[in-house]
């Protein structure tokens, strides 16, 4: 039955050859090794984070009065809560590691050099976005660790010469770390950063398809 539906769609869109040849069966260049997997693993972790993240918004409330209780509730009262939150937690941690390994590989193999400089730049931007994801997501459970980590983090940003104070104030939404901070961190974490990341990822992937994978010398 699925075959029929597939053929029905393909008869109209004529995508079969393209998907088969250019995506699923696309040959990879010689000399590719396991180190080339880290970009893909990072993307896989991003998908897991997106899936678990979407579903956690069903329960999460970004308010100082309810954030901690809602997280506690979804973790210990809702079936699969521990798994969903656990996958989000560990995927986030692993993503920092795999994105680092991916960057190290690109750096060591010199894959960032001409003509792939733009892809390196989008990659560095994606890396910054991942760190921003980590920083904003850390506050959301609104426990002691979250509160003090964000206080320290935003204070460090406050030490940037000249503009630091303003960055810190804008980040916290005022001089106090409180309801305003939590609400804007939540907005950043679930709306702004994901959209920015998806846009950059599309560019990142289209460019690697266009330019091909850089093989080691």
């Amino acid at each position, binding site marked *: 039955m699925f075959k029929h539906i597939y053929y029905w769609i393909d008869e109209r869109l004529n995508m079969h050859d393209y998907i088969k040849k250019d995506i699923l069966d696309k040959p990879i260049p010689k000399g590719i090794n396991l180190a080339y997997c880290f970009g893909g693993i990072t993307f896989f972790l991003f998908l*897991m984070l997106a899936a678990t993240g979407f579903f956690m918004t069903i329960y999460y409330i970004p308010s100082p009065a309810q954030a901690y209780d809602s997280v506690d509730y979804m973790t210990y009262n809702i*079936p699969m809560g521990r798994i*969903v939150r656990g996958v989000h937690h560990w995927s986030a941690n692993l993503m920092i590691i795999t994105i680092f390994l991916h960057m190290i590989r690109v750096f060591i193999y010199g894959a960032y050099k001409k003509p792939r400089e733009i892809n390196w730049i989008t990659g560095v931007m994606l890396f910054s976005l991942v760190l921003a994801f980590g920083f904003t997501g850390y506050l959301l459970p609104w426990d002691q660790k979250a509160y003090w980590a964000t206080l320290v983090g935003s204070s460090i940003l406050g030490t940037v010469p000249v503009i630091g104070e303003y960055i810190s104030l804008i980040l916290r939404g005022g001089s106090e770390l409180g309801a305003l901070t939590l609400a804007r961190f939540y907005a950043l974490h679930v709306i702004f950063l994901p959209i920015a990341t998806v846009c950059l990822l599309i560019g990142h992937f289209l460019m690697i398809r266009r330019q091909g994978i850089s093989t080691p010398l």
Partner: protein
Amino acid sequence: MDKDPELNRRKFMEIGIYAISGTIAAASSVALARFAVGLSFEKGKSEWIEIAPESVKNESEGFGRVILEYESKDGWLTKRERKLAYVKKTKGEVIAISAGCTHLGCIVSWDEDQKIFKCPCHDGRYDADGKVISGPPPAPLKRHKTKIEGGKILVATETLPYGGDKSV
């Protein structure tokens, strides 16, 4: 059987890839779906709350006004509720009737002379069992489950959410 070993390996890898991604997708979907459904089918737990025996009048004295206090759970929120009920004792049984009018939720009052419940809002009238006599109420007043256990008078919280709110 296949003469082309290259093709054989290719097929094997293809099946392997589909099997692994299929397993991951299926496992994630099941877990996430269960998580999303959550406790939607969970019925609210009914508890028994104790009321002071002195607030319960005997049948001959008519209904006594009793405020029933209990904690209601709404996900991660706990709310302290106060509901008014009319309670009296008859031959070893305790009758507890919600004070919430079934029309629009106003608090009904017990008229001892006429032996009826009267709603001040739209003149709904109920008899001493809570059955509608006249007026707009579409259903009888809620009867709370009660029991007497070891001299204690207990009321079930099950039907308490339906009206008679005195929390403000």
